[in-house]
Structure formats: C-alpha cells, structure tokens
C-alpha cells in the first residue's frame, strides 16, 4: 500500500512515516498543499494522511482538489482536537475517517487499515492471522475453524491487536480505542486488563496460541512470529 503523508510538522510526519514503514507501507511525505497537489497529479496513492492546518492553505481544500481532479484515493484527516467543524466538514467533503491530535500511532494505523479494508479489499473482508480468522463484515471470529464467541469490545480488541501485531500497545491506547472519549471516566485501566484476560482465555480455550504478551511497565503486545 502506498501512502502520502501531508503534514507540515516534520517530526510528526517522520513519526507516521516510520510507523507505517515498519508495517511494510511505502510512504511519501509532503509538507505543503502545493507539493501535495504536484505529487497527487503525478503518482497514484492508495491513501492520504492529511493534516487540516498547512502552511499554504487548508487541508480541506485538498479534498476539493482530489474530487475535482477525480483522483482515486482514500483520505484520513488529522484534525485538531475539538475542532468539530473540521471533522464534519472533512467527512462531508469525502474524507473516509479522521483522528484527532494528539493521536496514538497504533490508532492512526488501525484507522488507515480499516479504510484500506473497506475501500481497497472490497471482496475480501477476512483477516487471517495464523489459526485466527476474522470476518470484518459479519464480525465473526474463528480459531482453527471453531467459531469464537466474543463480545463487541473483545472483538474490537482482537482486531486492534492483530492490526498492530508485534507492537507494544499501552493500556491507554487500548482504552482509548475501545471507549473513545469516555476513557476520562475510567480513572485507571484495570478494565483493559479484564478484557485482555478474557480475550486471552477465550482464544487459548478454543485451541489457539497465547499471542498476547505483557510488556513490563507499558502494556501488551500481540506476538506473531512471521514465517
């Protein structure tokens, strides 16, 4: 998958670049609207990560540009937190999803991947990770062909883990992924522990491997040894 990152802050774009590259993505970076327009006209991209505030214009204008030039790509907006108007406007203008600053890199990646699945892999909603397979249309999970009975949160958690496999996920990241803006009410992340414990148990009971490892002091990691 080829991704164009349009973000004027060099360190931020480098973060995204590095994370996506680690997942085997081909990334390019633009620091301005002008530069992005040139690149979009010359090369095809599967997805664009677009910051709304850019030095030479509003990122939302690029959405108009993409529409008018009939460029076939998906767009993930990075908007400032609370700027409700930007989110709504962006989605109206044809963006596929958004994350708000300061975002978690695993979250950004999970959103990007979800867009990718929705738009590019239209015919294939099934994600397979060794003996675990997830149907993202029917939300059904099976381990070695045995269906797994997961709650909605456990399903989300498993998908998040598999999407960000071999990455350290903090309890905070997981909590925010599962509960969104309501993490404020959590006070601590014992809930995450509960969910992880349940998921782990269900997978192993169904005969799957115990992929979820604890990372000291930080959180969890879904360990898959690539063959």
């Amino acid at each position, binding site marked *: 998958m080829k991704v164009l990152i349009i973000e004027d802050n060099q360190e931020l774009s480098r973060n995204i670049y590095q994370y996506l590259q*680690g997942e085997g993505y081909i990334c390019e970076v633009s620091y301005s609207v002008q530069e992005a327009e040139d690149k979009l006209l010359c090369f095809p991209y599967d997805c664009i990560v677009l910051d709304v505030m850019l030095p030479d214009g509003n990122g939302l204008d690029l959405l108009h540009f993409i529409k008018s030039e009939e460029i076939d790509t998906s767009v993930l907006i990075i908007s400032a937190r609370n700027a409700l108007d930007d989110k709504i406007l962006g989605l109206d203008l044809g963006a596929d999803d958004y994350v708000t600053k300061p975002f978690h*890199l695993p979250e950004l990646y999970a959103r990007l991947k979800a867009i990718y699945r929705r738009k590019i892999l239209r015919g294939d909603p099934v994600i397979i990770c060794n003996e675990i397979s997830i149907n993202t249309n029917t939300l059904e999970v099976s381990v070695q062909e045995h269906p797994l009975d997961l709650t909605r949160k456990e399903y989300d958690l498993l998908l998040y883990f598999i999407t960000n496999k071999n990455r350290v996920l*903090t309890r905070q990241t997981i909590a925010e992924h599962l509960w969104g803006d309501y993490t*404020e009410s959590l006070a601590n992340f014992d809930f995450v522990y509960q969910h992880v414990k349940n998921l782990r148990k269900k997978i192993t009971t169904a005969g799957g491997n115990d992929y979820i490892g604890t990372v000291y002091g*930080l959180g969890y990691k879904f360990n898959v040894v690539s063959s």
Partner: protein
Amino acid sequence: MKGIRLKLIDQFTLWFFAITVVVLIAGGIIVFMSVQNEIIREDSRRLKDTVHLVATRLQQGAPVDQQQGYMVRIQELAHTAPLIPLQVVDTLFWFPSHEHYERQLMAVASYKIRGKHYHIAASNLVAEPDEIAEGIAKSLSWIFILLLVLVGILSRLLSRKLLAPFHETLIAIRGFSLSGQTPLHLKDTQIREFEQLNRFLEAMTQKAVIDYQSLKEFTENASHELQTPLAVIRGKLELLMDSPITDQQALLVQAALDSIEKLSKTNEALTLLTRLDNREYQATESIDISRHLSNGIFRLQELFELKGLHLDYELADNVRVWLHPVLADILLNNLLSNAMRHNIPDGKVTIILTEASLLIQNTGLHPQIATEQLFQRFKKSNPSQNSTGLGLAIVKQICDLNSFRVSYQYSQGWHRIEVVFRKDKSGQRKANLERKKVLNEE
C-alpha cells in the same frame, strides 16, 4: 430605583399632559383677568357715555322724568353741594328678585344745569368673577378632555410609526449572535437619534464579531499549536516503545506517556472552556435530554459493571431542554463520569431525571474541601487523583450559560449533584418565536 416601567410614548404623553394642565391653569388665569378687565372697561365707558348723554339731554331741556329709567337715576342735589366728577363705582348690590348680591357697575356725576344740581347715576349688572371663572374653567376642561382623547389615540398611532425603526433595531439586536459571525445591518431611518443608535450598534457589533473571531482563532491556534508537539512527543515515545528497551526505560516511557495524556486532556478541557466562554455552542432548539441521558447510561453501563458499581435510574420520558446537543452529551458524560470516578468499591449511583431537574447521587468519601468549591477550575477533593480537575468546572459553565442551576451537596456518604433546568418554558418559547420571526424577516 425601581418603579413602574412605562412605554416611552406613555411617558411623553404623561409629561405632555402635566405641562398642558399647568399651561391651561395659567392661561385660564390670564383669560380671566383680561376678560374681566375688558368687560369692566367697556361697561365703564358705556355707562360714562350714558351719564354724559343724559346730562346733555337735560341741558337741551328734556324733562327729567323722561330720562329716568331702569339704568338711569337722576336726583336733585342741593345747589350748594360740591360737584361730583364723573366716576365709576364697582359695588355689590342686593337684588331682591334673585335674592343674592349682584355685581353692579355704576357711573355717577353731578351737573349744574339750568340752575339745578342733578346727580346722574347710570348702572348696570355685570358678570361676577366667579361666573367668568366658571365659564373659563368649563371651556378649558373641555379643551383638556379633547386633548386627552386625541393625544391619547394619536400618540399611540404615531409612536407605532415613529418608533418602528427602534423596534426593528430591538428585534435585530435580540437576534444577534456572536457565533453567527455577521455584524448587524440596520435600515436607515429619518430620525437622527435612531440613526445614531443604529450606526453605533453596527460599529459595535462589527468590532465584537472581529474580536470574537480573533479570540476564536487564537484559541484554535493555541490548541493546535499545543496538540501538534504533543502528538510528536507521543509518537516518539510510541516508536521508542517498539524498540528494544530495558524495563527501567519502559517505566520512564510510561511515566512520560501518562503526563502527555494529562496535558492533552487538560488542553482539551481548557479549550472547551474557552469555547464555552465564547458562546460557541448556542442552543438553537430544544433537545430530548431523556434520550441523551439513556444513551449516555447505555454507553457507560459496561464501565459501571466493570467497576462493580450498582446503578439505579429513574428517567422521565421526553424531557425537553433548551441545550446544544454537543453540550448535553458533555454535561451528562462529565456528571456520569464524575459519579463513577469518585465512587467507592461496591458503591452506588442513583440518577433521577424529572421534567424540572436532573439529580445524580453517588456514594463516595467525605470531600476534603467545600463541595461548592469543586465547581472551580483545578479544585480537586483528592489532589492525588489522576483527573484534570476541570470536569465539574465544565459542568458549571454549561449550566451557567444555559441558565440552569447546579448544586453540589454531601451528606452521610452521598454526593448529590442536582441540575435544575430553566423553569420559564414560556420564556424559552418566546425566545424561540422571536428568533424565528427574525429569521423569517431576513
């Protein structure tokens, strides 16, 4: 000073009437004096003429008897008596047939004619002062009544016409909203004061809109400028996490991440408070708070269960409240989160929504500071807790902006936060109608 508030036109009318009364009284006195003087002067002249005429006739040899009459009396005086010069006497005179005194004007003089000394008196009854006064008072009263009626009716009609631009301005101001971002545009009027007022309002709203805009921009920029570096730091730490690090380093990374989390939440809450100060979320219609609340409870139900809290609720259906939907969700979420966060193990939460108010109670520890202070920014009952200390400040701000009354009490292990919705529904309806009216006119 508080008094009865009259319409401008009624004030004008009352003052006008007060002045009219004074003028009419003064005018009445002047009219009375001049009428009376005129009558007396005219009558005196006529009576003097009569005396003179009688004297001339006698001189010419007319018999005395013929000259006597109703008004003229002639008496003979002693020849030696001194001559009486022509003079007018104003006297009261008993009138037997009317049985009261009448005012009489009499011209007298004596003449020596043909060796005889005649005393000639010509007299006439004149209108008494009280009769004149009565007549004047009567006619002036009629004038006053006529004025009262005409001015009363006409002033109302006229004021509707004259004050029309003013009322238009009032409606325009009422419909003005900073977040609408358009300064007022008022029609030209022929009345100088209103014209001044309109121009002043236009200039003022223009400035307000610009100030508001720049403040809003500043807030957005500040928030964005803080969020970007926060995103950078968080990303760096997340990338660092994925590299091989020691346990010691992992703890350092986690501590840094926690602080970033806190900073980000605080920034978010402060931005929200600023936007609330800017009145960016103005309610434009009433919402069904029952639905918002049951959705909120549904979303948090799982967390209540995970935390082992016992939740009881009793929600009246279809309670409509004048509030922006985004604020409704923030308000409810903050209240519910608060009840959950500051609870005790195996604690309870009770939520009661009625037509008039929302009551959320939760079990909890005794607060360390006065409960009302918890609505202040960064005031926490337990400073060590990992919260921003802004949740209730936001609740308070939302309530203040929407004229809700919010109170916080603690007694016997229970924290009670009550939000009393704005009572005057008619006021809301009125405001609503006016807003619609303005929209229609535009």
